């Protein structure tokens, strides 16, 4: 299970706010004071000492400015200079997840451990059942030889005293595609070629050692230091992210400097329509099943890690794609900023010429706080487009398949199935469907468990946000009844 927000990732919100504050205050001129201000001399350090805390805070601030720890070539380079560099760049840095090596605690590698509860019994099922003969009896107790152990877990299963435990490495456990691995010093590294940018490692690391390049400074800079029109495209999961009426959130975004705000749920309606047509066509061609394609982390996982699934993945584009296409048709000169719960959207946007920047809900939240905007004081404003009930339901698990089913409308047999959360097990399951076929013919895959409301860029509790979305869905009209 992912740890819900905790101290480690709460820190990220604080840092983002600090960076916004520093942007407004003096364009990062005094940014180097922030780590010291946050960890003054008499403060109880979170790690070994305040000096290490400060060093890590510097890396966190760099990430919020769009640099990973690996971008550091000169240790003496100050935050002020990173800030200046960020303000000068024309295009945002390529999105990527990275590990702050000095923050990674290098969790122990050996996955299984014999505890003191071992009684050195006569039966010794652990020794018997170990397929690698990695277990022997040392000083009257079982002992696992880490050089032989392959972490199959058989010993743990068979021990009658439950004396063998699994020591997980949270990030490796959470990564569904094995893209995060230890180096010879035990420190984790992310493989950029296989990473699907889902953000599960970032959510699960108890030391908050994983960061991601933000585009926040780039957007702030565009808003305040250019005469370009900057338009926010709000993902449907926005409803429920702030405890205010959605119209007020739109008002707050305008106050923060966005020239216009559009609803991506309107793009979701196009996705539903095209995906329903595609589904009907594929079923009539006699295909076994089709999967959704709007979750970018899943889409990339299918491409890179489950190639046998490729012919079954829908070719329909995502709500973001259609929303951006509509926007750029109407306002070709604007800068489009997708605002959502998702980190993988940043990678998707890199291949989409109509999406210029991607921010998370957490980042716009930080923008409000750093600029002193109270959403509750903002006047409620209308969304530019009106979406259907189905489009609004996309961020909840089952929402996409539901929207497609609504439009398939009995024209062909429709048997939906939800893959709620892209875990290692579910990847295996999808592989099986690709090779052996599936009983159901519409497979909706959401990388985040619960749907986009549980995405790594969210701030609200998923449970509460889901309730607010349900209310908003109930106020929408059925897509079938719209012209």
């Amino acid at each position: 299970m992912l740890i819900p927000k905790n101290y480690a990732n709460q820190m990220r919100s604080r840092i983002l706010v600090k960076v916004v504050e520093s942007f407004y205050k003096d364009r990062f001129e005094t940014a180097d004071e922030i780590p010291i201000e946050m960890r003054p001399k008499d403060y109880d350090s979170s790690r070994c000492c305040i000096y290490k805390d400060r060093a890590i805070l510097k890396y966190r601030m760099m990430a919020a400015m769009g640099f990973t720890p690996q971008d550091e070539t000169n240790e003496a380079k100050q935050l002020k200079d990173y800030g200046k560099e960020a303000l000068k760049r024309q295009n945002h840095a390529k999105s990527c997840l990275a590990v702050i090596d000095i923050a990674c605690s290098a969790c122990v590698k050996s996955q299984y451990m014999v505890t003191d509860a071992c009684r050195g019994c006569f039966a010794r099922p652990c020794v018997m059942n170990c397929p690698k003969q990695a277990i022997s009896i040392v000083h009257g107790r079982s002992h696992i030889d880490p050089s032989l152990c392959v972490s199959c877990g058989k010993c743990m299963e068979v021990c009658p005293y439950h004396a063998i435990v699994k020591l997980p490495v949270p990030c490796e456990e959470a990564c569904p595609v094995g893209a995060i691995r230890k180096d010879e010093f035990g420190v984790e590294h992310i493989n950029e070629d296989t990473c699907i940018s889902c953000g599960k490692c970032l959510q699960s690391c108890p030391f908050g050692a994983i960061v991601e390049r933000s585009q926040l400074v780039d957007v702030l800079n565009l808003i305040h230091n250019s005469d370009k029109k900057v338009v926010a495209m709000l993902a449907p999961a926005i409803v429920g992210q702030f405890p205010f009426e959605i119209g007020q959130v739109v008002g707050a975004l305008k106050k923060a400097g966005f020239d216009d705000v559009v609803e991506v749920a309107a793009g979701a309606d196009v996705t539903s329509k095209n995906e329903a047509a595609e589904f009907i066509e594929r079923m009539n061609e006699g295909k076994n099943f089709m999967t959704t394609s709007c979750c970018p982390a899943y889409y990339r996982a299918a491409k890179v890690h489950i190639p046998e699934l490729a012919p079954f993945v829908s070719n329909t584009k995502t709500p973001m794609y259609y929303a951006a296409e509509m926007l750029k048709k109407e306002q070709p000169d604007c800068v489009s900023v997708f605002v959502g719960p998702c980190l993988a959207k940043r990678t998707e946007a890199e291949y989409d010429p109509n999406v210029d920047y991607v921010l998370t809900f957490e980042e716009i939240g930080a923008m409000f706080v750093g600029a002193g905007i109270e959403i509750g004081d903002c006047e409620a404003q209308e969304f530019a487009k009106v979406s259907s009930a189905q489009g609004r339901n996309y961020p909840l698990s089952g929402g996409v398949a539901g929207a497609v089913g609504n439009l398939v409308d009995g024209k062909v047999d429709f048997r939906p199935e939800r893959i709620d959360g892209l875990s290692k097990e579910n990847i295996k399951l999808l592989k099986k469907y690709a090779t052996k076929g599936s009983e159901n013919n519409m497979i909706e895959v959401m990388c985040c468990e619960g749907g986009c409301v549980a995405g790594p860029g969210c701030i609200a509790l998923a449970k509460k946000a889901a309730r607010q979305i349900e209310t908003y869905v109930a106020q929408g009209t059925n897509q079938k009844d719209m012209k």
Partner: protein
Amino acid sequence: MEKIQVKLCAGTACFVMGAPQIQALEFAAPSDIADKIEVKEVRCMNHCSQGQGYNKGPFVEINGEVIQEATLEKVVAKVRELIAKEEEKSC
């Protein structure tokens, strides 16, 4: 015993600074305190607006006492402390 009043700030600053995690109290409070508290979400209580006060958020008021940089853990500890005090008084 009167219920302990817990006011969770759900203003923008407190919300971004981590108030949602404390909202878990509304449906998953530890069983020893669940029926002894009354949890209310309130609008900005203006603790955030002095200077850069929001950096000290989220704010929670428990029987009128302000907790800054509140976390679920801190709030639960404070409530337990108040309950223990009450019980001491009544015996």
